[in-house]
């Protein structure tokens, strides 16, 4: 472990690049495996909430191989492309959507030592990179040459513009408290009190905006299946579609990871339970956040796009600005 840590902090050379490649490929596969089972978990949780069984045939009683089979099916499907689609962009769009969702994973500190890139501006990096995936969605919507897809793409843009801002603003209060953008340091400061208690308003706003960023119910407007069918990925099939799905889920887990890191204290144990290793704590808190995401998906209806915009600009943004102000005063008085 220390050796890996040494590699991470060493200056970039050809050798360290090769080692990086060797380490990250298993990590990538691990993430993919994790996503596979998280999709199964989502279906099981949804099934449990909705009085169904969820997958229970493929791979034993619990449907353990269901998602594997689904992904495999998508991979061997014919790769169709609409005749009038913009060929280059059509092929590029899933990649643009997919790559950032993996790129953000590098800054997340999973345990005290396991961070792929301990950047000084980790938080900023995360938010900035995650904004790129929306471009992939818009590109997909435009390139498909489909009216529904175009509408989905336009909705995605509107949503991104509205929600990036309160998302960032809600974190400013936290950054003021922490005095750093480095995610590892932010976790270290939460040894006794997690930031969810110090920044409750920021947490709520961030959580709502995260849902909107992830295009999940109640903010799944770009792909609202009952309105614009599947939105931006209506024309995609096979592995290109799989890329969109994967991007969505990986991004969801990245976001859950970020919430864990920022507000729930990452690997920090609950006081007195320090004998349980850090990654277990991280996994527990992380799973809790993911479960809440799933729970919300099973419960809430969808907002309308104008309501969504109104909510972002008229409610979330002023509150997050007020939160910055409040945090500044508190910081000045008590810290």
């Amino acid at each position, binding site marked *: 472990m220390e050796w890996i840590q040494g590699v991470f902090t060493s200056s970039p050379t050809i050798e360290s690049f090769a080692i990086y490649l060797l380490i990250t490929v298993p990590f990538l596969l691990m993430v993919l495996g994790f996503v596979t089972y998280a999709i199964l978990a989502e279906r099981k949780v949804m099934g449990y909430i*909705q009085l169904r069984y969820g997958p229970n045939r493929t791979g034993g009683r619990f449907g353990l191989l269901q998602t594997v089979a689904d992904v495999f099916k998508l991979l061997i499907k014919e790769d169709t492309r609409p005749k009038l689609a913009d060929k280059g962009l059509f092929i590029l769009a899933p990649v643009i959507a997919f790559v950032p969702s993996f790129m953000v994973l590098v800054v997340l500190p999973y345990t005290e030592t396991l961070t792929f890139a301990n950047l000084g501006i980790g938080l900023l990096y995360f938010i900035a990179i995650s904004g790129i995936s929306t471009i992939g969605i818009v590109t997909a919507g435009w390139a498909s040459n489909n009216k529904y897809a175009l509408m989905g793409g336009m909705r995605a843009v509107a949503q991104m513009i509205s929600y990036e801002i309160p998302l960032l603003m809600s974190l400013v209060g936290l950054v003021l408290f922490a005095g750093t953008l480095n995610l590892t340091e932010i976790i270290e400061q939460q040894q006794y009190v997690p930031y969810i208690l110090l920044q409750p308003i920021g947490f709520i706003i961030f959580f709502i905006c995260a849902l909107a960023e992830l295009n999940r119910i*109640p903010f799944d407007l770009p792909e*609202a299946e*009952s*309105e*614009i069918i599947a939105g931006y990925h209506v024309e995609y099939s096979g592995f290109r579609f799989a890329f969109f799905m994967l991007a969505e889920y990986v991004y969801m887990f990245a976001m859950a990871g970020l919430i864990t890191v920022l507000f729930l204290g990452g690997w920090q144990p609950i006081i007195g339970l320090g004998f349980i290793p850090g990654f277990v704590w991280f996994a527990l808190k992380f799973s809790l956040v993911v479960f809440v995401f799933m729970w919300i998906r099973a*419960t809430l*209806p*969808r907002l309308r796009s*104008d309501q969504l915009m109104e909510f972002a600009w008229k409610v979330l943004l002023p509150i997050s600005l007020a939160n910055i102000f409040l945090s500044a005063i508190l910081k000045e008085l008590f810290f």
Partner: protein
Amino acid sequence: MIRTEEMLLNVGPQHPSTHGVFRLILKIDGEIIKEATPVIGYLHRGTEKIAEDLQYTQIIPYTDRMDYLSAMTNNYVLCHAVETMIELEVPERAEYLRVLAMELGRIASHLVWYGTYLLDIGATSPFLYAFRDREHIINLLNELSGGRLTFNYMRIGGVKWDAPEGWIEKVKNFVPYMREQIEGYHELVTGNEIFKERAKGIGTYTKEDAIAHSLSGANLRCTGVNYDIRKVEPYSIYDRFDFQVVTREEGDAWARYECRMQEMEESLKIVEQAVEQFPESGPVLGKVPRIIRPPKGEAYVRIESPRGEIGCYIASDGKKEPYRLKFRRPSFYNLQILPKLLKGENMANLVAILGGVDIVLGEVDG
């Protein structure tokens, strides 16, 4: 200079929210609908024309397939029309069985509406809860008639079979269960702020509009018109039951939601009373001639189906087949106000408005 133009968008006939094969040609500017033209007829089977070559009893299965979510009321309207023509007495036990079947069917139909409406709005779970409870009703009606969707249960002069042993008990137990479930629905959905935002003030029309477009059912009552044929012109034995006609004043999608939810409770009241008054024994089929030949003339009857006023017109020339049979199909009439409502709305509201009208395409197309 950016050039913008209106886009022509085909919604349907295969679209998840058109509840069947219904097509809307939309002229949209961004997401704002400038003009909406409904296209119907994809499910047209010519029921009325086919009926001209059939004996009256043979038409009953065809009525099942019109409004397939509440087949019992359709069965009834045809039988009722023929019974009116030949002035046939229906045994009391049969009338009670019919009312029970129709009211249970009304609840089942409203449950489907509730579930699919929430699905349109974007909530997935209520759909499954509603269908679980609908399953109970379908099981009850299955025991009664042998069918789950197309019952073919009513006959001219009565019903096909008597209720099986213990059936009345089961219905009796179902009423409190369903009341509890409706409470649960309200907890999950009615108080939800997002749903309120989505439904309130959407697709609003006035009393005058509603009457001018000859809307009926909850679509009419949501504007404050107290009009329910079960009360206005009691048929069967509806004058024996104590129930309210549910009305709301607002005339929006939310009012329609509230109307339908409360109508379920009123239907439960009727079921409860019908179970109490249910005659111990008696025939379930009246003295019906072997071949029904109504005298020369015509008859029109109307009843309250879950979707509104369903009417049946029969013109007979004294033969055993009708000369002309015509159904007033409420979904078809309720759909007429749609282009007016959709003008100026956006795509998301389209779904909320269309779903709120509660159409069944089998009935629209006939």
